[in-house]
């Protein structure tokens, strides 16, 4: 057993796939950062709101005012630096920290693919991605190698596999498989699309896409791993992601996943790609093909072999935490995030907050648009932890305005995957008496018509 592990850990492969991934992943993130800035989202999502929703345990992460632009600049610059492999160890660390900080500033903007970026950057921090086809190894011959231990690439592949397979397993639920929801809701107004638009209103197409999506997520990794199906699998990857890109506003996500799937390609493919790129940019690529292997154990390789197994263990466990809670997961969203549950539900909500003076009984309603942006209102009204956090914010606000004996109640309704709206949070619970925690939220009313 331990011998076979040792043999595996010493197995060498070309460094080219890791270098290709570093370059493309980094450049995509540079584009992401510029795009985010260009669209004015820094201002819209972080500077305009008066209040931000925090992740449990990360309440200390604050939006640094106008310095947020500097934060994005540093994030984009570090992505560029690690893409070209310049001061790699520092730049990937700075990228991981700045990107993750940005994501932690407001959970309103939570997206699975941002989380994926953070995780991939975390893994990359421990890998020798700068020892081939990089500025660092160009300037410093002593770190330059042509071969690296294969587990470095397998670590990234494992992460991608976890994402796809978890996403596939999550699709195996009643709404997705037997009602073709929420896809049915999303597809039926896409009748303007070329060719397939005319079928977008048809139920069979909704089922085809739902089942096709589940099969894709569950099996694509295996098809990419096997060399005989790899090319056809990659064509499917392209089709899948450009189709979803054409239908939904999913930003950079398809490109990320396409770049990630290149990691499954052969050494010769990546070598040829690097040669091609080198030709265009007049880089003497042969210099990197020095026949050297990375065999010595370094600080980072020792750390990686200690940290990455623990990391993957948590990656397997975190998506399973939702099973610790009773009730419909989509309804309560206890343990929903960080679990690769992608596009699984259409949920809309409405939350009308009532401020009550416990002694005099006087009460009034809150106009949410006075405190939250439209986007924040949308996210808040369907997620119980948002509702609690906002209620506490309202409590503090009205207390500071001189109101006394403040109680906050909410009359809320939500609709899940086409079900008729129904009461969401117990309207008799003073939300100032409850707190966000990992404990089950007893004030969520059960979903009827589950």
């Amino acid at each position, binding site marked *: 057993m331990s011998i076979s592990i040792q043999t595996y850990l010493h197995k060498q492969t070309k460094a080219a796939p890791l270098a290709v991934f570093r370059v493309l992943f980094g450049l995509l993130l540079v584009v992401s950062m510029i795009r985010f800035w260009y669209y004015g989202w820094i201002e819209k999502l972080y500077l305009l709101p008066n209040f931000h929703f925090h992740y449990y345990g990360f309440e200390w992460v604050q939006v640094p005012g106008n310095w947020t632009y500097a934060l994005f600049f540093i994030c984009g610059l570090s992505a560029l630096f690690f893409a070209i492999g310049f001061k790699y160890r520092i730049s990937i660390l700075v990228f991981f920290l700045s990107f993750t900080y940005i994501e932690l500033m407001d959970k309103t903007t939570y997206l699975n693919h941002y989380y994926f970026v953070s995780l991939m950057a975390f893994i990359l921090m421990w890998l020798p991605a700068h020892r081939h086809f990089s500025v660092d190894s160009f300037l410093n011959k002593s770190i330059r190698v042509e071969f690296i231990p294969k587990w470095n690439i397998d670590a990234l592949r494992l992460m991608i596999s976890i994402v796809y397979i978890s996403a596939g397993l999550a699709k195996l639920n009643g709404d997705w498989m037997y009602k073709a929801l929420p896809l049915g809701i999303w597809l039926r107004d896409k009748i303007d699309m070329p060719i397939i638009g005319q079928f977008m*209103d048809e139920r069979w197409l909704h089922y085809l896409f739902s089942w096709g999506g589940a099969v894709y997520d569950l099996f694509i990794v295996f098809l990419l791993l096997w060399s005989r199906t790899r090319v056809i699998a990659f064509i499917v990857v392209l089709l899948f992601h450009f189709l979803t890109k054409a239908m939904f506003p999913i930003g950079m996500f*398809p490109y990320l996943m396409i770049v990630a799937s290149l990691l499954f390609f052969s050494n010769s493919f990546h070598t040829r790609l690097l040669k091609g790129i080198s030709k265009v940019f007049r880089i003497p690529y042969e210099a990197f093909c020095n026949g050297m292997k990375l065999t010595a154990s370094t600080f980072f390789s020792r750390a990686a072999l200690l940290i990455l197994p623990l990391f993957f263990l948590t990656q397997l466990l975190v998506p399973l935490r939702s099973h610790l809670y009773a009730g419909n997961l989509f309804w309560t969203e206890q343990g929903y995030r960080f679990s690769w549950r992608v596009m699984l539900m259409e949920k809309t909500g409405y939350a009308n907050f009532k401020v009550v003076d416990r002694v005099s009984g006087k009460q009034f309603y809150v106009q949410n648009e006075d405190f939250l942006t439209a986007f924040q209102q949308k996210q808040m009204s369907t997620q119980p932890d948002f509702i609690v956090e906002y209620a506490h914010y309202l409590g503090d606000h009205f207390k500071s305005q001189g109101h006394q004996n403040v109680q906050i109640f909410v009359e809320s309704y939500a609709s899940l995957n086409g079900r*008729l709206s129904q009461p969401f949070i117990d309207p008799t619970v003073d939300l100032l008496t409850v707190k966000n925690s990992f404990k089950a939220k007893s004030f969520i009313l059960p979903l009827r018509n589950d």
Partner: protein
Amino acid sequence: MSKLHFLLCLIFFFAVACGGDNMEGEGPPETENNSFNRGEMLAFWADDIIIPAYSDHVEGLDILLESMNAFYANPSQSSLNDFRDAYLSSYQTWQQVSIFEIGKAEEIGLRNFMNIYPANEELIENNLNSQDFNLVLPSNFAAQGFPALDYLLYGIEDTDETIIQLLTSENGRVYTEALVNRIRDLNTEVLTDWNDGFRDEFVSNDGSSATASTDKLVNDFLFYYERFLRAAKVGIPAGKFSTNTEPSRVEGFYSMNFSKQLFQGGFSAVQDFFNGISFRTGRQGISLRQYLEHIHMTADTEVDLAAAINEQWQSAESQLVGVNNNFQEQILEDNPAMEALYYELQDAVVLLKVDMLQALNIQVDFVDADGD
């Protein structure tokens, strides 16, 4: 093999390079099938509801201007009455266009200049006396539009005689003319824009993203319903957003007996827009109601949402029957009836904002950030 790989890479980079953020289909819209056509709905909204409603409103404002000029040509009780009548009827026609804060109206922020109430009496008097005012400034929202006119025509003095005196004073005349001209000019500007190309822009933007016309106007519609109809006209004066009732915050506070009529105007406009009642012909066309019915039929949903929404509005209408023409009086004498009206309107918010938005897959306003 290697050629194939190279080809795949080419496809990939080409796709990345071309993959804009608006991958709207370029093919001709499909007309053969029975799919619901958002473009047709937008055309009906523009041609049968929005533009005719604005035309009617602007015609009313021309009459308002004429009657004001007639009043200044010959100030008397009778010409004051005509002026007031023209004011009231144009305040009424305002209710039928206030929902449509899109295009030019959105750009100039029309509603802020037309109907921010309660009017700021002190500001109005300062502006009038100092003759140093700039109505373009946001700080003057509450010193212009219909509420300010309401104050000048009914509230600034105690008797009609003294009101005539004030209106015909040098300062009074300058300010009154400024207000009426501004109301007329801004609304005319919006109507002109609809007729000069915005109509086509509006109708052709028939996609289903956050910036598509359907999504934008439905969001505007819901925003109007929730904030300007439910809250401003009923909820706020009835004290639903404060610890005490605020009867002085009713619409048309100085003219007294018209707050119910103004509310009814806005509420009818809401229902007609939802049901697709043509402003021109009074016949039913294609609107949110038909859209919801189409989905109910094709997607086999639990309930007929359009019917549920109309039913809820019917109970609001029944509640309204017993309410005083003067909302202020109603609140002072019997606020629970006013609160009951508020709750009837409120119950429809859930059906509209939760169930309808989900059924129609309408994106929330202004948020075009990524999803996954």
